[in-house]
């Protein structure tokens, strides 16, 4: 939006470059992108490749001990990239999982990128589904495509996108393969050009009636909340943090926030 204001032939002139007002500086929208993923999927490598920063990477699970942040610019828009700790799930069994989950739930990033290992897609999808329960603005980054090819594993990312309802991009962050496409997809999901409608696994049979009872109640209480079903899951399981958020009004604030951001961006497709 702001970027187009400055789109003129003289934008390549060095003088213009030094005088141009960065969107950040005039309170222009800066988008937040969260980077989630299992440990050892090359998440830090993706982070470094996108931001040009040098987080330490290594052939170790759990190398990223604390959260890192960086920026990248695409088409004149700045994106803030937050590297979440690597986790296998978001069921909050450890501090790392809690940090990752709270960043996605309460931090409300404009887009969440889940980095998955192309050679172990099945195990990695578990996390993708859990993220999709919380937010529908998801891009799946199928990393280590080179390694997968070497092992004779072929991932059809188009088919994968169709199956899960959010875009999937194949990358090999170590060589830079697919990163341009990844950035384009992130931008597209944020500005609504690429619609997302996550296809979530049905709730467990044994608990279907419980979920069906709770979800309308949650929707009635927080009309703007997008992830009523996930909240229902958490409440049935007895998740301490979510119970607390419910009682303290944090969830209500979250719901109001989401209603506002929806009305502020009328172009966005609202998933049924």
């Amino acid at each position, binding site marked *: 939006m702001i970027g187009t204001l400055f789109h003129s032939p003289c934008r390549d002139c060095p003088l213009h470059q030094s005088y141009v007002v960065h969107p950040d500086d005039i309170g222009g929208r800066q988008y937040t992108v969260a980077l989630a993923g299992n440990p050892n999927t090359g998440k830090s490598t993706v982070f470094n490749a996108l931001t040009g920063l040098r987080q330490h990477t290594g*052939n170790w699970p759990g190398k990223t001990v604390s959260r890192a942040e960086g920026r990248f610019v695409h088409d004149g828009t700045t994106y803030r990239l937050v590297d979440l700790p690597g986790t296998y799930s978001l069921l909050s069994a450890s501090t790392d999982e809690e940090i990752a989950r709270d960043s996605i739930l309460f931090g409300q990033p404009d887009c969440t990128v889940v980095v998955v290992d192309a050679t172990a897609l099945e195990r990695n999808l578990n996390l993708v589904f859990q993220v999709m329960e919380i937010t529908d603005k998801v891009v799946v980054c199928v990393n280590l495509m080179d390694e997968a090819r070497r092992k*004779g594993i072929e*991932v059809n990312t188009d088919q994968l996108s169709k199956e899960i309802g959010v875009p999937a991009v194949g990358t090999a962050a170590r060589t830079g393969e697919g990163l341009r496409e990844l950035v384009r997809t992130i931008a597209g999901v944020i500005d609504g050009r690429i619609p997302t409608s996550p296809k979530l696994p049905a709730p467990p049979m044994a608990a279907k009636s419980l979920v069906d009872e709770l979800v309308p109640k949650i929707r009635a209480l927080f009309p703007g909340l997008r992830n009523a079903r996930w909240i229902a899951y958490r*409440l049935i399981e007895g998740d301490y943090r979510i119970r607390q958020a419910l009682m303290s*009004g944090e969830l209500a604030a979250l719901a109001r926030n989401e209603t506002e951001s929806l009305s502020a961006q009328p172009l966005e497709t609202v998933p049924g």
Partner: protein
Amino acid sequence: MSDSTAAMREKASAAELLQRADALRERIGGERFRDELVATLYRRAEEVVAQSVRRRRPRVWLTDETIDRILTHPVLGIPVMAALFAVVFWITVVGANVPSAFLAGLLMTDGGLTEPFREYLGIDAPVWLASSVYQLLHALFAVLRAPPWLSGFIVDGVYLGLAWVISVMLPPMAIFFPLFTLLEDLGYLPRVAFNLDWLFKRAGAHGKQALTMMMGFGCNAAGVIACRVIDSPRERLIAILTNVFVPCNGRFPTLITVASLFVASAVARPGTFVASLVGTAAVVGVVVFGVITTLFVSWILSRTVLRGEPSAFILELPPYRRPSLLRVLYTSLIDRTAFVLYRACVVAAPAGGIIWLMANLNIGGASIASLVYGFLEPFGRLIGLDGVILLAFIIAIPANEIVMPTALMLYMNQGRMVELQGALLGAVLTDHGWTLLTAVSLMLFSLLHNPCGTTIWTIWRETRSIRWTVLGAFMPLTIAILVCAMVASLARLFQ
């Protein structure tokens, strides 16, 4: 006013919702619900993968799975691991002798490289290599008419300290670190954690402690910082307090030097294949003993001051990667070897000067050094060492790297000048009363004693507790003294 009533209504309905959810949970059970939920996720993942992933026969016949079937085999895993490390140590023990002799000749032996050239190359050294830097420096100071105290302090103190560190420490480091970095880069270290996981669980500690232990091989301070990957504070403290029981960069060369120079030659003829095997076995034995101590102390801690159940975790085995040779060389030689050598030199230079002063300043006809190690002698004997070695350990608190060089310098200053030759170091030690017991005790003490200054400081920074820091320093020291005293009395019993 209406705002607050709305808020109150919201709160009331939230409480109602919560009550209903709790009632529903009674029906199914939170645990079971989670299991069912995860099961649906995995079922769906399976369907998705069936639609979007195709597997062809891999292009390479040796896949990670095949390799892991052997390296993480329930029975074979640990022996294969021990064999792998044994090979690394053996190469180090065998390879370090020759460069050590050349460096000692170049830097400090009378006659320079004459002897190493004759012994290893079978030719006479050129004339300009027939005197060592040490001799040249003395000649230079003589020409400059420097007073004896100055040349003594600078050349016999500071310079000799540095020369000892370089000729004794550099060769084993320059061989061991590239090999270790190679294993690390290949992705082998997490497999070690996998193999040892059940042992740590039995000890009431976290399986990831095996990973932090592997980091400790590089540097205990780094190992203590790596304990951050363990979430549970209880298990993290256990990992921090026991990290010192794996020998670090700074202590490995000491172990390797003593093992190859002394243990090996005390059992077999020096320089033979059998001697190298004995030296390797000694190093492997000490490392295994360190791991056993780690497990035992973890077990004690988790049943006393740090009681609790081990928590579960997922350990993913990363794919094996072809290491990049340049990166391995850079990491091992610049990041590790040069770093450790630099640290050792920074401590060794002033230590050399201090040792010279202690050896040459007299109080009542005896040098300060001899008074101090004379005082420490009875206690040293009790634990199989001697006063000089104990004094060396005290001087080396800032950096464990300089224990051997310091001890050697103290011996050399005991009045009798001994012909210094790399290959004859063992003879120097024998001359000063070393026995097999002394060598074994020194290796054990080096393995178990208090962490170096940097590590102690790091323990404080990570725990922010004086109590745990004091325990982290004195618990290993006590264990070292007890174990060495036990070994010494057993050895004397059977003599």
